[in-house]
């Protein structure tokens, strides 16, 4: 057990991935000497060489397009998109090529490509540096979409993603990069919780609160606050957004009868919509109240001086929890 920040945990996980598989590569803008703008790849080029930790030209479509080609040659690229708002130039390669090539090839082609994306707001950044585009990828069959909420998961899940033979969109909670926690860097992946399983973070009985990435910590804090006024929240870290671990979700909602989904992304058309639709269909008779969603309003991401109003926080989560009891 060592105490690591989330970003350092990712760094250690990536190091393991490079050590365990000579075909694993890292590629992206500024991932080499700089170690990435968040230092997630710090020191890796020094230790594994420029052939395995590749500083690319400045073009995201090129990064993903060439990563696909490297994967066709037998490599396992782990690509970094510098910020959430800059994944869009690569959208075509991800959606029309990366996601579909296995299907197109009737399974003869595997594309073990991981795409790391620091996502979400809360760091006072300028435009395009605080987006949450995960729902766009969850609506695209052929991709796995996951997000880690704490250093321990960051360490394991990035290794699981790298070891996965499918394309994985790996969303890293930017504002949690500096969160510290105990990480067991000795344990291998053997006993680890699968990447596509949700985890019951805080067991509870009254309301199921579903979250992922940056909102995991916030929801855990909400659970503590709620227990103060005698409400027992069951907080579940979804971890995987595509596929969703519906078994865990439904079991919890059937128990609590109430459900709140929390994410930073715009509520309209977000992951919460899909969850609300499925939960309502599968737990119809157990629901005491409709599934409520807490997230961003239906506007572009505002200037950072307003982001605290724009993003879900402890109060808005508790407010939603209260509202589920109003039904």
């Amino acid at each position, binding site marked *: 057990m060592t105490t690591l920040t989330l970003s350092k945990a990712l760094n250690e996980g990536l190091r393991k991935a490079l050590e365990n598989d000579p075909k694993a590569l890292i590629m992206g803008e500024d991932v080499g000497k700089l170690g990435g703008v968040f230092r997630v790849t710090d020191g890796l080029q020094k230790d594994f060489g420029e052939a395995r930790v590749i500083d690319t030209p400045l073009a995201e479509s090129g990064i993903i*397009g060439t*990563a696909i080609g490297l994967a066709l040659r037998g490599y396992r690229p782990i690509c970094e998109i510098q910020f959430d708002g800059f994944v869009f130039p690569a959208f075509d390669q991800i959606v029309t090529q990366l996601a579909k090539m296995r299907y197109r090839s009737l399974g003869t082609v595997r594309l073990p490509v991981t795409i790391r994306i620091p996502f979400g707001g809360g760091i006072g950044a300028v435009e395009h540096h605080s987006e949450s585009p995960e729902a766009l990828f969850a609506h695209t069959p052929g991709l796995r979409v996951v997000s880690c909420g704490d250093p321990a998961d960051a360490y394991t899940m990035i290794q699981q993603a790298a070891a996965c033979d499918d394309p994985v969109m790996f969303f890293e909670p930017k504002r949690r990069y500096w969160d510290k926690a105990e990480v067991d860097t000795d344990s291998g992946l053997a006993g680890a919780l699968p990447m596509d399983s949700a985890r019951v973070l805080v067991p509870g009985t009254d309301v199921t609160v579903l979250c992922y990435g940056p909102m995991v910590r916030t929801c855990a804090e909400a659970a503590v606050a709620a227990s103060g006024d005698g409400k027992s929240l069951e907080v579940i870290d979804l971890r995987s957004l595509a596929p969703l671990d519906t078994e865990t979700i439904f079991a919890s909602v059937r128990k609590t009868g109430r459900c709140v989904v929390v994410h930073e992304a715009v509520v309209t058309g977000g992951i919460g919509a899909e969850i609300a639709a499925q939960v309502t269909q599968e737990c119809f008779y157990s629901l005491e109240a409709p599934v409520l969603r807490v997230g961003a309003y239906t506007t572009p991401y505002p200037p950072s001086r307003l982001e605290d109003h724009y993003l879900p926080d402890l109060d808005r989560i508790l407010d939603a929890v209260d509202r589920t009891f109003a039904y």
Partner: protein
Amino acid sequence: MAVKDAGRAARSANRASAREPERQADPAELIQLLTPEGERVEHPDYSLEISADEVKALYRDLVIVRRIDFEAIALQRQGELGIWASLLGQEAAQVGAGRALGARDMAFPTYREHGVAWCRGLDPMKLLELFRGVSHGGWDPTAHNFHLYTIVIGSQTLHATGYAMGIQRDGAVGEGGEAVIAFFGDGATSQGDVNEAFIWASVSNAPIVFFCQNNQWAISEPLERQSRTPLYMRAQGFGFPGVRVDGNDVLACLAVTRKALQAARDGQGPTLIEAFTYRMGAHTTTDDPTRYRLSAELEAWKLKDPIERVKQYLIRTEQAEMSFFDEVDAEAAAVGSRIRAGCQRMPDPTPDSMFDNVLTSETPQLAAERAEFAAYLDSFLAEEGAR
């Protein structure tokens, strides 16, 4: 009125941009080894030692791929295929490039490289499956080192470049090295992806040949819509050589591609080849070229037919008997009837197969959808049973 104004502004705008449309290849810059009349000519940079048998083999390829194309068009007319993208007129470019490839080289086609597919040994039935709507391609790219067809314009050029970067990482550049060839059209050169591929390839000095078949048209758009300079010149600006070859001259295409591939294998980096040719047919079987181009253009190009000139050469030089041509025609006809019969017999995939190969392991959600679908289908059988 205001409309008129805009119209006028437009015309002036157009005048402004009216640089001589670069459509006829300046002979000086067009590499040719076999004239349209079938005369063998020499080129200082591209000598080609080639035996009679080799030329005959090329002729056979040309005739057979044209026949495959011919059959496919007929099959589409008969409703056996949903659509077909004809290679008519581009046989020499594709056979020349295709035969320049070594077994270990990797090819990344668009949706029109039926001739390259033939050279790589891919069963034409695989192509028919795609255009019939039975599969999205579905062949194993590693079986013949021939990647799947890519329909999104330009995307494959980046895949090819990445693959070439993999060759570098495998240390397979230099002595006995491997190379990659990426095919694309004149229209594709406008896509960001193709330009990014040029940049990646040049910056990493990847072992790749960019083979652009400039068939003068991108559906209804003439080359002027994509460029006001000859396309091969693009390469210079990115820092690697570009050459223009007579795309209807199979010998020149073979020689130029061979040299570029060898340079790539030797670690000299990328080359852009512009094969100057012509799309003699419609863009696809659903297209109607009479809406946007004059038949005179086609007539002019017919005189440069890629197959006829080889035949004339073989006859003139007495390297082939008349019987040879009959044999080739017969073989082509046989291939034609084989694929015609095969296509008509081709079964649809089972409905259930649409759930296969989304991911390497089926998610519980998809498994549920698959089951739901099966139950739903059964419900009809049940109904029918009930009747």
